[in-house]
């Protein structure tokens, strides 16, 4: 499946359009997306950005997902670095 990951906060600027397109096996879970994005980041992102992924969560358009959750059918995901609102 095609997965498009939106980048926020400190991840912004790491990719043109603040998005990464990845291809994952059909029915992939968040853990697999994390692994794939980590491999991508190790090649294409600065070291700090890659390290920050460990502390980052993944979300669909409506929910923060857990590692074992399946990715949504529309493949639209976001990676969320630690939050600092307010």
């Amino acid at each position, binding site marked *: 499946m095609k997965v498009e990951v939106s980048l926020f906060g400190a991840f912004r600027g790491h990719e043109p359009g603040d998005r990464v397109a990845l291809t994952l096996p059909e029915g992939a879970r968040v853990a697999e997306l994390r692994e794939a994005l980590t491999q991508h980041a190790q090649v294409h992102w600065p070291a700090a950005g890659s390290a920050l992924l460990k502390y980052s969560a993944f979300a669909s358009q409506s929910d923060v997902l857990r590692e074992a959750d399946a990715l949504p059918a529309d493949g639209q995901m976001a990676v*969320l670095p630690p*939050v*600092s609102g*307010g």
Partner: protein
Amino acid sequence: MSFHDCVVVDIANGRLDPTAAFDFVSDPGFGGFAMFVGRVRDLNHGRVVTGVSYDMFDALALNGFRRIVDAAYEEFGPGIRIHVGHAKGRLGVGDLAMVVAVGTPHRDEAFRVCRQVVEAVKHTSPIWKQEHYADGDSQWSEGCSLCESHGSAG
């Protein structure tokens, strides 16, 4: 239906409005009103701050705000009113970043709900703060990882 009002305001289009928030949570049956306002300050960890950019995943943030207020209704009952507002975009010193207003029959609930909502918004909302300093440097603030509060991370 519960009375709450969750908004995200892009600083390019408008400002958070504490007076409107206070009016929204008003009711003839309420005696206690608590409000919190967060503003950009001119100094952080000893560095002179000239502004803050808030990045936000809007749809998810608004979903989260609604869950936070729903949790408050669950705990304190439906007979209260809550407003949650957060700004996004590039704010200057003194600009309003966040407004939480709560109206309740009695003051103890107002204080407790307000504090609880503020902490939840700060700790769980997909919002990121980038500070801009007088020396031209900018830095994303360290924050709360959403992994722990939502289960195990890799």
